[in-house]
């Protein structure tokens, strides 16, 4: 298979990465090269094989439902691009 320019633009939109026409062109070439490598997988019959999501087949560990972390909001917001009154600021979403 090979991707189209339109698919590259669509995926870039889904990933929220602005992409110029020139970038979309060069990305298309690279992605098609990579997908030709990936396509080797398709010839393999994997019917009946359980997908392996993780290196260890372990159930997620559960913990006690209690507070374990202290509030460090000021420290964590000190590295934010823009904050006010303990809130992260973003461009206006609702008029």
């Amino acid at each position, binding site marked *: 298979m090979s*991707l189209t320019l339109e*698919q*590259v633009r669509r*995926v*870039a*939109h*889904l*990933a*929220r*990465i*602005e*992409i110029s026409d020139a970038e979309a062109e060069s*990305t298309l070439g*690279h*992605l098609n*090269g*990579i*997908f*030709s*490598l*990936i*396509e*080797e*997988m*398709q010839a*393999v019959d*994997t019917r009946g*094989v*359980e*997908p*392996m*999501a*993780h*290196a*260890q087949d*372990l159930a*997620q*560990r559960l*913990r006690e439902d209690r507070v374990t972390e202290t509030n*460090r909001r000021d*420290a*964590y917001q*000190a*590295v*934010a*691009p*823009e904050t006010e009154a303990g809130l*992260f600021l*973003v*461009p*206006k*979403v609702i008029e």
Partner: protein
Amino acid sequence: MIERSLSSLSSALAAGEISSVELTQLYLERIARLNPTINAYVTVDAEKSLAQARAADAQRAAGQGGPLTGIPLAQKDIFCTKGWLTTCGSKMLGNFVSPYDATVIERCNAAGAVILGKTNMDEFAMGSSNETSFFGTVKNPWDTACVPGGSSGGSAAAVAARLAPAATGTDTGGSIRQPAALCNLTGLKPTYGVVSRYGMIAFASSLDQGGPMARSAEDCALLLNTMAGFDERDSTSLDRPSEDYCRDLEKPLAGLKIGLPKEFFGEGCAPEVMALVEAAIAEYRKLGADTVEVSLPNMKLSVPAYYVIAPAEASSNLSRFDGVRYGYRAPEYADLNDMYSKTRAQGFGAEVKRRILIGTYVLSHGYYDAYYLQAQRIRRLIANDFVEAFKHCDVIMGPTSPTTAFRLGEKAADPVQMYLSDIYTIAVNLAGLPGMSIPCGFAGGLPAGLQIIGDYFSEARLLNVAHRYQQATDWHLRQPAALD
């Protein structure tokens, strides 16, 4: 002093031959002199390092501390380090001073180790040459026209150039083992879940694993003793009794069964590298080991499966970089979506964007089963191949990398060629097994690595197998010609 191993420096500190402050200063001076050429470190902060060194000296003077107390270490810039710039090789985190410590950093600090600086790396650990770093390429100390490997290329170059006695690295598809091979170091990727991923900036969460990079197996064992251990803050950390990874170093190798997968010894590897790997295996036979042919029939599928699974996980993990809570934000934008798109377009480099796009595509509606699930099924087949192989052997050996260090720029324009430099390492991550690379000789003046793969939780055995070889050979003691 800087020629000495970590374990020997530890003895020197214990005997009072040198203080941690003096040792740290020696390294800082050397970094100031050589880092402009090698570019192994992204951040150095002498004041902070020396403060830690003074504290370590005080601890030793009070009769306290352990083997790492006062030992200067290079920390890969993927580990969040409180009060230090933590960039992950990206413009996206170019201004990020971490408000907390990764568990690995916390454990090194608690052991009294000194942070010499943060090492350069491929952006978000995506690369095999260190050329995707926003902070410039790293030069291989063996030949500054060549790459050091990646993604832990800064850590590898730092140790190879004697800008640190040892370093931390991380390995998602070979990022500890391949640079170790290309820079004549010993590096260990532990079993998935042995070293905490808390505060280790995520690339592909089901594959990422931190580990030591040093000049010998013994030094790796010492560093792993500090890095490894259960951590309740990492939901994939394994709750098992702690181990002394030095315990089996000296065990004789008589009767060791080495599996040689025929897929590792076919075409694809440079003949000069293969000759060195075969010579190393002959040395193991002299040490009393037996070899047996095994097969990993699905190994050739590891690169395709990896380039679905790792980008899929990366596209999800890297969605957190949106210009809202930390890191870079585009200076100009029209609205919220435009801010996300411009921030990510400007903050990420080309390789990171490519992988996010691949990952987004394979996870998108209509493609999930054909790519993502198929890759996960192949991952199972690859893991099963190892289970079968380990019925016939104790460890598996082969090349770490198909070539010695390639030249800067040689593969940078062709992602597929770059991806194929990890053909021997990726399967180990997919299976979650421990793997090492140790120096096994030189071709054209450049080092090559022997890869040793073990069954789950066999780190102590791998280190033993590596150590005995290092007692019988001196490849790991070779150093690059004077850089000054």
